């Protein structure tokens, strides 16, 4: 395997459950975490709905994968960007999303927020710096 570290961004623009894209994209993120790259995950457009609190799929008999986002910290995937404009357009705030955290090994395992609220312009800058963009 190549020794170089690339900046990877996974871009989520779809709501969960209506299609399988959100779940299968999360599966890639989990597998990709083993490759020791510089991983970034963006939630824009309907992708922000993936992180909504209180998902309960029992009445539709589908797998509820929302708790899996909370495992991302264990997988050292700690840079999750949520686009501010997408939230606002949908009448949402950060309070509506699941809190996602990680424990910072370099800071005595202090618990820190993984979700970073970004304006569209800020996120466009971060996207611009990436080497590889995965879309689902």
């Amino acid at each position: 395997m190549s020794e170089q570290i690339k900046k990877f961004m996974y871009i989520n623009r779809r709501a969960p459950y209506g299609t399988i894209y959100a779940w299968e994209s999360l599966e890639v993120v989990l597998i990709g975490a083993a490759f020791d790259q510089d991983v970034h995950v963006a939630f824009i457009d309907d992708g922000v709905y993936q992180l909504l609190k209180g998902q309960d799929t029992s009445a539709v008999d589908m797998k509820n994968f929302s708790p899996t986002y909370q495992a991302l910290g264990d997988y050292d995937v700690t840079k999750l960007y949520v686009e501010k404009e997408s939230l606002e357009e949908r009448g949402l705030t950060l309070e509506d999303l699941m809190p996602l955290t990680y424990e910072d090994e370099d800071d005595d395992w202090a618990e820190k927020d993984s979700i970073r609220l970004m304006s569209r312009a800020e996120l466009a800058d971060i996207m611009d710096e990436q080497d590889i963009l995965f879309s689902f």
Partner: protein
Amino acid sequence: MTTLHTVNKSPFEKSSMDSCLAYAKQGSSVLLYEDAIYGAIKGTAVADKVAAMGGVNFYVLGPDLKARGVSEDKVVDGIGIVDYAEFVTLAAENDKVQAWV
């Protein structure tokens, strides 16, 4: 870094072209193909949005125009008409490709 953005949805059906235009930086390129070719046509409600994007290079995939019966003279002035070989060149010339799927 420069990016080739690709859009394949009709702007009249889906918002991916809008999202793409909101993210496309000066100096980047946008390729409209498959159903997104309808976003490259003159006199539509989206033509002005494309015209307002100064500093972004627009392209449309000729084979997809032709397949849908849209003649090249209907394409907004300034949008380049490319074939698959030129699509490859655009992908190679930019530092990366972002698909607004």
